[in-house]
């Protein structure tokens, strides 16, 4: 991953957004603070209703915070209307102007900024080339496909060279293959333009594959900010661990805490080494998570033992659902190989080996 300069493009400082009043009031955002670095591909990830879109709308200026500041390169933009912010948005519905051509759509922002005609023309041509839409410049936006509309929406938002580009679930209307293509395309555009992207999605896979950093949100709060690797392998809270990928939760007794690590004694009596969520001092008992692909089945005695309940074949891998002797459920994911037998069957008594550096102690 290329080095990113440490300058912050956006700083969200203690921002709250409260809808309604009196008894019926709802905090869509609850004292949220987050810094988004220059040139970063930053993703706000969370289930619907978590506040991610509200935060995006506040940065765009379609809504104003109840409290807090939103700094763009140090300047508070929270009270400014959207047309005074050097920030552009790619809308979920694309919101292309139906009465204008593709080229006029792309040039609209520059025209509103009062740029000279020649400059607009050159910039529109450049943008059309960037999103590979030169051939359709003269078309009405109703006459092009969903994927093409997506590209035009991107070009339109990028044309005025915003300091920050906001993307509100822009890929959700596309089918699976096109979505995969656009994920790569978006990453390329971000690299080529060097513009800071803030991307909103509820799709964890999208977030993991595209982002430099991810903020996981739930109920109006940011639970954890980190690289995809951090978020996946070192989740701080149960919600984060659960929301991103599949995982196993185990109760364990914690000892020897220090240096970001601890010893976890599982219910089976086995003791494994685990990393500890950042800034967390675990007490005696805590929840430990282990990803299914970081555990291994064995016919011998492992760290855990149980009975195979179900085997689900996924093509690339197989999920083995095990009921532990302690009563907890545990899933192991095993890479498939061609023709080789799998070796386990339902109702087999099995052991589970947990690799070194596979377990993480949660804050919850």
């Amino acid at each position, binding site marked *: 991953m290329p080095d990113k300069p440490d300058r912050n493009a956006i700083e969200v400082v203690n921002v709250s957004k409260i809808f309604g009043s009196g008894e019926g009031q709802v905090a869509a955002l609850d004292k949220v603070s987050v810094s988004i670095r220059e040139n970063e591909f930053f993703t706000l990830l969370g289930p619907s209703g978590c506040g991610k879109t509200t935060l995006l709308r506040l940065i*765009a*200026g*379609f809504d104003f915070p109840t409290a807090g500041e939103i700094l763009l390169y140090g300047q508070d933009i929270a009270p400014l*209307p*959207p*047309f*005074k912010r050097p*920030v*552009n*948005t790619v*809308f979920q*519905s694309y*919101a*292309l*102007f*139906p*009465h204008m051509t593709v080229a006029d759509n792309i040039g*609209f*922002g520059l025209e*509103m*900024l009062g740029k000279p005609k020649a400059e607009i023309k050159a910039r529109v041509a450049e943008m059309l080339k960037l999103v590979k839409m030169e051939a359709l410049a003269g078309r009405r936006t*109703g006459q092009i496909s969903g994927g093409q509309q997506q590209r035009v929406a991107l070009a*339109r*938002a990028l044309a*005025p060279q915003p300091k920050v580009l906001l993307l509100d679930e822009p890929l959700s209307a596309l089918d699976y293959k096109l979505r995969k293509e656009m994920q790569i395309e978006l990453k390329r555009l971000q690299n080529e333009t060097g513009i800071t992207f803030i991307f909103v999605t509820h799709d964890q896979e999208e977030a993991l594959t595209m982002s430099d950093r991810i903020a996981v949100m739930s109920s109006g709060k940011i639970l954890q900010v980190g690289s995809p690797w951090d978020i996946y392998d070192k989740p701080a809270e149960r919600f984060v661990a659960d929301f991103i990928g599949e995982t196993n939760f185990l109760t364990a007794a914690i000892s020897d805490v220090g240096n970001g690590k601890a010893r976890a004694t599982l219910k089976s009596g086995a003791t494994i080494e685990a990393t500890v969520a950042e800034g967390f001092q675990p007490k005696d008992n805590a929840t430990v998570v282990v990803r299914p692909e970081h555990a291994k089945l064995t016919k011998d005695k492992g760290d855990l033992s149980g009975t195979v309940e179900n085997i689900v074949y996924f093509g690339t891998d197989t999920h083995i659902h095990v009921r532990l002797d302690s009563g907890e459920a545990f899933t192991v994911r095993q890479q498939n190989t061609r023709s080789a037998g799998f070796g386990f069957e339902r109702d087999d008594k099995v052991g589970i080996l947990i690799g070194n550096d596979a377990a993480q102690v949660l804050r919850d």
Partner: protein
Amino acid sequence: MASNFSIKHQPGFTAIAATCFVVLYLPIIVLVIYAFNAATSTSEWGGFSLKWFQSAYQNTQVIDATLRSFQIGAIAAVLSTIFATMAALATTRTASYPGLTFKYAAINQPLMVPEIVTAVALLIFFSRIKIFTGYSGLGYLIAAHTAFCIPFAYLPIRARLENMDLTLERAAADLYATPWKTFRRITLPLLWPGILAGLMLAFVISLDDVVITEFVKSGGQDTLPTYMLGQIRRGITPEINAISTAFLLLSVAIVTLFFFVSRKRD
């Protein structure tokens, strides 16, 4: 046996439908045919002739009333469409609040209050103003027509606005368009078919009005419909048929245009 209920297959359907069409169109067809009657009667056919059209065209009173109708209709249609556009913007570009339904009702008042009541009220109201100001021009008729045309202009405009994606205006604002520019460049162009439809509908409604016009007009301010009404009292000649036919053609043309305009989507 058909599983679905179909009104078309009920006994008597064809007879009822045919009767309705006959009642609706036969009188009009007869009226149009007798406009071309060479005789002076509206019931006895005396051969084909265009002389009644010619006579209507040479009748200065007819031309005078027609021009006045157009003048009032055009001004009232433009004014009522402007007001209706503003009203439609104000009632759709806002979150629902208590009293909004009342506002809809207030805007659509002319659709609910019996026309004769409005006519009498305006007659009394305007006669007071006439006494105070001494003004007795076309202004009263224009004002009255503007008022009752507003709901007809309002409905297609509001329908268009309600179907419009609000995100488009947000996108324009995001792309540095001020509220006025957003209105000029995005809202207005997208609203235009609705506005045109409203304008035409208002014009036709104004052109057609008898009751309010009859009560509000001063001497020598006949519109085409009130002139025709006056003529009929004195006895009917095929000239009335000829005028009616011309009027019918004009209305059909405008309404057809209205359908084409309002059918055009995005």
